[in-house]
């Protein structure tokens, strides 16, 4: 609990907030990672023949050719992870471990995170930052609830 981890957390938070608001200012989109991942992979655009793309839909401002903007956002996210993986040793940065919980727990946890974000229409970023940042009642309630449930769960499982 040193001061530097607070400074890093605050600086990182500023970057996250900046990214999210820039996506809103430039593209008019919510930077909700679960939504972005879901629409990149499971969008109707991919499920149906490209020729049948609904051009009447006013919501559909995506280019009909090439990957959607969501894929570009995801590429940016993955890219930072790749850079981290390349430099963490030289810079003495921490290695992240994913084996603190058993594999069945990881699978159940992953399923719950995906299902919960889909039904709740948002995750930490979509509700916690973009939603609360717009003072959305739905997002304030959702964020308080998932943080409270996550804290209780962490207490009992760790």
């Amino acid at each position, binding site marked *: 609990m040193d001061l530097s981890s607070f400074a890093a957390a605050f*600086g990182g938070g500023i970057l996250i907030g900046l990214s999210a608001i820039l996506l809103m200012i430039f*593209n008019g989109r919510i930077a909700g990672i679960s939504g972005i991942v879901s629409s990149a992979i*499971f969008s109707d655009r991919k499920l149906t023949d490209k020729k049948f793309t609904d051009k009447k839909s006013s919501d559909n401002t995506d280019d009909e050719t090439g990957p959607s903007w969501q894929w570009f956002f995801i590429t940016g*996210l*993955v890219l930072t992870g790749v850079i981290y993986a390349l430099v963490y040793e030289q810079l003495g940065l921490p290695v992240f471990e994913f084996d603190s919980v058993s594999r069945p727990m990881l699978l159940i946890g992953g399923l719950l995170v995906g299902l919960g974000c889909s*039904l709740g229409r948002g995750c930490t970023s979509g509700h916690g930052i973009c939603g*609360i940042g717009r003072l959305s009642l739905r997002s304030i*309630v959702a964020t308080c609830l998932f943080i409270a449930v996550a804290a209780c769960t962490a207490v009992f499982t760790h």
Partner: protein
Amino acid sequence: MMKASSMKRKASALLCGVLFGTGLLVSGLADPAKVIGFLDVSRISNGSWDPSLMVVMTGALAVYMSLFYLVVKPRIGTNQAPVCDVKYHLPEKKTLDSQLIFGAALFGLGWGMVGICPGPAIVNLATLDINLGLFVVAMLFGLYIGKLLKSAQLDLVKVS
């Protein structure tokens, strides 16, 4: 012209993705051990609780909220479009419903079990860690089931 603005949208999405991922890595949110160290509030009793992640949200909200109300809200109010798109895509739902509550509770349960939420899951793909890979596959499966449930419910509403 349409083509050019589409390319700008994709370029800004890429830039935002890089900024977002950097923020997750710098803040410590990408480290599941650190997330659990924050969520497990029982550690307060022995002094090992790590409250630093609370500051991530403070920093992010300070930037997002101020710029939303200074820049975006006035533009929406005067019917102006975002820089690279024809309109703002904001959620239409405004009221609480049971699906939101149920979904948020399930997400909290999963997040508290493993300490990984969707953003860090994607950023950490580059670790090529098998356990993280399993988590991501399960998460995608969950997102897909949720999408199916939501469209099934939508069909029910249309029928009735």
